[in-house]
């Protein structure tokens, strides 16, 4: 009963928040509601006994990613409403809903067809964090290290792209050099 109430509450509120994100004309409102939606998504994870994933969701998404967006939005003019030329609304909605349904069905189809066996079953005795760490540092060690390298590369590229010579534009000067060469 308690689980059902929590599930319906979280699903209603996340879907509402994400709808505001998608439909809002103001970038600031969109970002705030996206941050709220991220926090409530972590509620799903806690319901699903994935405590570690829920904590990571709050720290990484609501903390790091939304802070990055906030810093990024300092470069843009966000006080104005977003001006957009939107054409063919009905086609867009039909296409989006149909293809989303199709993708979810395609991905979830093996669940109904075959009898799935757990490769790394959850240990009944140990906690979620413990069993997750055991699997991650034994079977998923190489993807883990690769994702660490990927995060490092992304961090360096972010620093290089944004912060080098903040007063002048890199691409414009390169384009000018290119034109001189031509």
């Amino acid at each position: 009963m308690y689980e059902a109430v929590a599930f319906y509450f979280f699903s209603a509120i996340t879907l509402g928040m994400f709808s505001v994100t998608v439909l809002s004309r103001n970038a600031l409102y969109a970002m705030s509601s996206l941050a709220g939606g991220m926090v409530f998504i972590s509620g799903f994870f806690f319901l699903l006994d994935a405590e570690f994933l829920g904590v990571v969701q709050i720290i990484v998404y609501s903390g790091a990613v939304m802070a990055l967006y906030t810093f990024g939005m300092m470069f843009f003019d966000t006080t104005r409403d977003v001006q957009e030329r939107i054409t063919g609304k009905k086609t867009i909605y039909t296409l989006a809903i149909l293809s989303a349904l199709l993708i979810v069905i395609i991905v979830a189809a093996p669940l109904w067809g075959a009898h799935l066996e757990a490769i790394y079953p959850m240990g009944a005795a140990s906690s979620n964090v413990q069993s997750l760490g055991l699997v991650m540092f034994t079977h998923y060690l190489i993807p883990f290290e690769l994702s660490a390298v990927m995060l490092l590369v992304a961090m360096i590229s972010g620093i290089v792209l944004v912060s080098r010579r903040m007063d002048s534009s890199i691409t414009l000067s390169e384009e000018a050099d290119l034109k001189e060469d031509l």
Partner: protein
Amino acid sequence: MITLTHYLVVVGFMFAIGLVGILRRKNLLMLFFSTEILLNAANVGFAAVSKFYMDLTGQMVAFFIIAVAASEVAVGLGLLVLWYKRTGSIDLDSLQIMKG
């Protein structure tokens, strides 16, 4: 009693919202927001399957998806800031440089 189907239906709705955003918005920042919604929907789906099949693989995949999303934001936002400095616009139509 909440079953896997409940979760998958909600994930489907969430994914549809994200796709509507990607198809409808012309602002590149909004496209990034919609991408985050899509990734989150996939995460919830993986965690749900992971719970109802008592398998940790889904949670691992969701964990790596979060890492990918974080680096995607770092690189994408850097490129977006560069593009805004160059053209003064983050509209999707400003990316269209071929005339035809």
